[in-house]
Structure formats: C-alpha cells, structure tokens
C-alpha cells in the first residue's frame, strides 16, 4: 500500500515536531520516499534552520513548546525566502474552526493525526506540483525580463535597456563625481552590404560586429547596446575622454582589420565613431542622457562627413 512516488529532484523537507519518536519516524519515512529531511523540535528552531538551509516544504505539528505551528506559519509568511515555502500543518485538532485558523495563519494544507504515511506523501506531491508551477513561473518571468532588454539579432542590450540604464549611469557618475564615456558607432556603407549580398549576410555582419565590440570591453563594467539598425552605443563608466578615445581607436582598427567569412565570400567593413564624455567638475555639469547621445551622434556624423572609418570626439579628430 505504500508505493512511494519516485522523487527525481532532491526536495528538502523540514519536519517540525516536538515529540522525538514522531520526529524520528517522519525523518525515516520521508527519507525512504526520497526526500532530504531536516528536523526541528519547535518553531523557533525551525526558523533558524530555514535561514541557513532553505526548504521549500515544511511539515509542522501545531502544539509545540516555545513557538507553536500556528506562529511558525505566520513567521514564515512574514519573511521573504528564496522561493515559496509550502506548509502542511499537522494536528490532533480537527474542528472546522481550527482548520480555518490554521489556513489563515498561512498553512497551505492540513492533516489530522494520526497521519497516514500514504496520505502525507500524496499531499506532499500536491505541494511539489505547486512549487514546480511557482518555479516555472519565476523562470518564465526572468526569461521575459531578459528578453525585454535584449536585441534579438545580436544578443546584446537593446534600446530600451540603453534608455533606462544610461540614466542610472549618468546619475551615478554625477553623484560620485566619476568620469563617464560614451561611444556611438555606425557601420560604414552598411546599406551597400544589404543591397549587394542580401539581408542574411547583412545580419551576419551585424552579429559579428556586435561580437567584436562585446569582446573588447571590460566585462561587468562597460556595456553596449544596439541603438538603431547599424548603430551601436558603448557606455564606459569610470572612463575619461582620453580613455574613450583609446578604446574607440582600438575598436576602429580592429573592425577595419577583421574579415568576416560569409556564404557570399569574405567581407571587410569599417565603422565611424563619435565620442561623448562626462568629466566631473567640467563645464557640462549636468548632462542628460539624451545630451550625451546627441553629442556623440554629432561627432559620429562629422566622422562620416570627413571620410568614414575614423573617430571624432570633443577635442578634435584622431
């Protein structure tokens, strides 16, 4: 009668029970069913354990010394944990009024003593179903959040992220009086590539280009976003004007030297760079993100006009 449902992932259960015999029995029985089991003698001990070893499943007795099961339910619900905690309350009380009190305190399910092992395992299965739903939902939300700030073609950040995060970077630079560099770069004659080789090759070129940029910046500090069709923005915290020029020039040379192998043959490209920079204490004391972008855009336009494949910034050409 006690066929246990196989428990593939290791699920941790915290058993909270003041009677040592029941506690030991539950430990043995649940381990046999494939759970990882921890045990506590009352609510207070249970909270301590949870803080150090999170368990998504909690089975708790109601009547216990120190902190009883009802108070434990309330305490668990008051704190935020790394995931949902599914609580099964076990008790010899079984009046309707008691059941309502238990559920209102935050229990998800309710079992009366004596607890039949098969029933307890089935209830735990229900709990796991709910926890799995919660995990899937959380993963999906994270994925959606990631997608909403990612450019689908190149995998780098998109314009939405740029708009939101550039504001944060500018504010931080102002507050801590740190320099901030911004590069806007645009592929030269990209339309020709699309017209000559088709959009598939054009997409490939954009991906390669984005990959080179991504590979040349400081991970975790600098970041880059696709601004428009073939326009990219690099944001360089803690980088002054000279540093911004250095990087832009390095990137310009790298792009001009690389060869992209495409189904239509090898392609070489060049790019033009415009720089905007914020230096604390400088005359431009409160740059708005749009001001920085416009400034870089104007310099990029100058780079295009003066022959492309070059870097232009506030102090002149390089």
């Amino acid at each position, binding site marked *: 009668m006690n066929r246990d449902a196989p428990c593939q992932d290791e699920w941790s259960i915290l058993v909270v029970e003041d009677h*040592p*015999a029941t506690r030991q029995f539950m430990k*043995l*029985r649940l381990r*046999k069913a494939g759970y990882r089991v921890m045990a506590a003698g009352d609510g207070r001990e249970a909270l301590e354990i949870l803080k150090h070893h999170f368990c998504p499943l909690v089975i708790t007795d109601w*009547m216990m010394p120190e902190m009883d099961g009802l108070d434990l339910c309330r305490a668990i619900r008051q704190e935020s944990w790394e995931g949902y905690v599914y609580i099964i309350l076990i008790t010899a009380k079984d009046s309707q009024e008691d059941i309502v009190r238990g559920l209102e305190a935050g229990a998800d399910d309710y079992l009366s003593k004596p607890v039949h092992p098969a029933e307890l395992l089935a209830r735990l299965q229900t709990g796991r179903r709910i926890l799995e739903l919660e995990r899937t939902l959380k993963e999906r939300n994270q994925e959606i959040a990631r997608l909403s700030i990612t450019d689908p073609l190149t995998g780098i950040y998109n314009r939405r992220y740029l708009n939101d995060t550039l504001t944060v970077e500018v504010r931080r630079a102002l507050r801590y009086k740190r320099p901030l560099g911004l590069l806007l770069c645009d592929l030269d004659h990209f339309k020709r590539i699309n017209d000559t080789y088709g959009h598939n090759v054009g997409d490939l070129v954009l991906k390669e280009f984005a990959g080179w940029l991504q590979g040349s910046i400081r991970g975790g500090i600098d970041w880059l976003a696709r601004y428009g069709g073939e326009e990219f923005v690099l944001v360089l915290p803690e980088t002054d004007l000279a540093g911004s020029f250095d990087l832009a020039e390095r990137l310009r040379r790298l792009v001009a030297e690389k060869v992209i192998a495409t189904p239509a043959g090898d392609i070489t490209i060049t790019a033009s760079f415009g720089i905007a920079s914020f230096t604390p204490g400088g005359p431009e004391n409160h740059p708005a993100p749009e001001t920085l972008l416009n400034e870089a855009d104007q310099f990029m336009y100058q780079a295009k006009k003066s022959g492309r494949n070059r870097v232009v910034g506030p102090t002149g050409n390089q």
Partner: protein
Amino acid sequence: MDIENTARNLGIGRDELLEVLEIFLEASVADLEALTEAVAAEDRSRAGAAAHSLKGAALNLGLTEVADLARTLEMAAKDGVLLGAEGQLKDLREKLQDLTQAIQA
C-alpha cells in the same frame, strides 16, 4: 504487538520501527511521570499536556490502545475529573510495559 505488520503499515523497516519505538518509550517514561505527578497534584494543564504528547505520538505510530488511554486521560484533565484517573494511569503503565517487552523480544 505485531512489529512486522506495524512496520509494513508505516512504510518503514522492522529495525527502523524498533528504533522509533525505543525513542517513544524513553519519552513515555517522562510523560508518564509527569502524568502521575499531575494527577496526584490535580494539575489539570500539566496532566493534559503530558497526555496530549503521548496521544499524538502513539497515534502516529499506530499504537491505538496507548493512544486511547492517553486520550481518555487528556479528556479527564480537560473536564476536571482527574480524581478517578489512577485506574487509567495504571492501565497505561501496563500497556507501555507490554510494549517494552514486545520490542525486547
């Protein structure tokens, strides 16, 4: 008491059940002592708590006779009629002794 059968019903091994019963009996000594003192002193809340503890564990381990006696004592404590409870206390002590012998066999 049928150890094999109880173990099967609870879904644990025979040796595991013996281990759990040993722990139960150890705890029961304390519960029984508390009960005896509380009944003599007519301390209803202490008697009730000790009987409740014993009842819960006995129920979970399928020890129905022990659980029934503990429940009667818990009720008596609740209703304030501990005076006649010595008889039940004696029955309970005997049942626990039987159990001790059963697991030592």
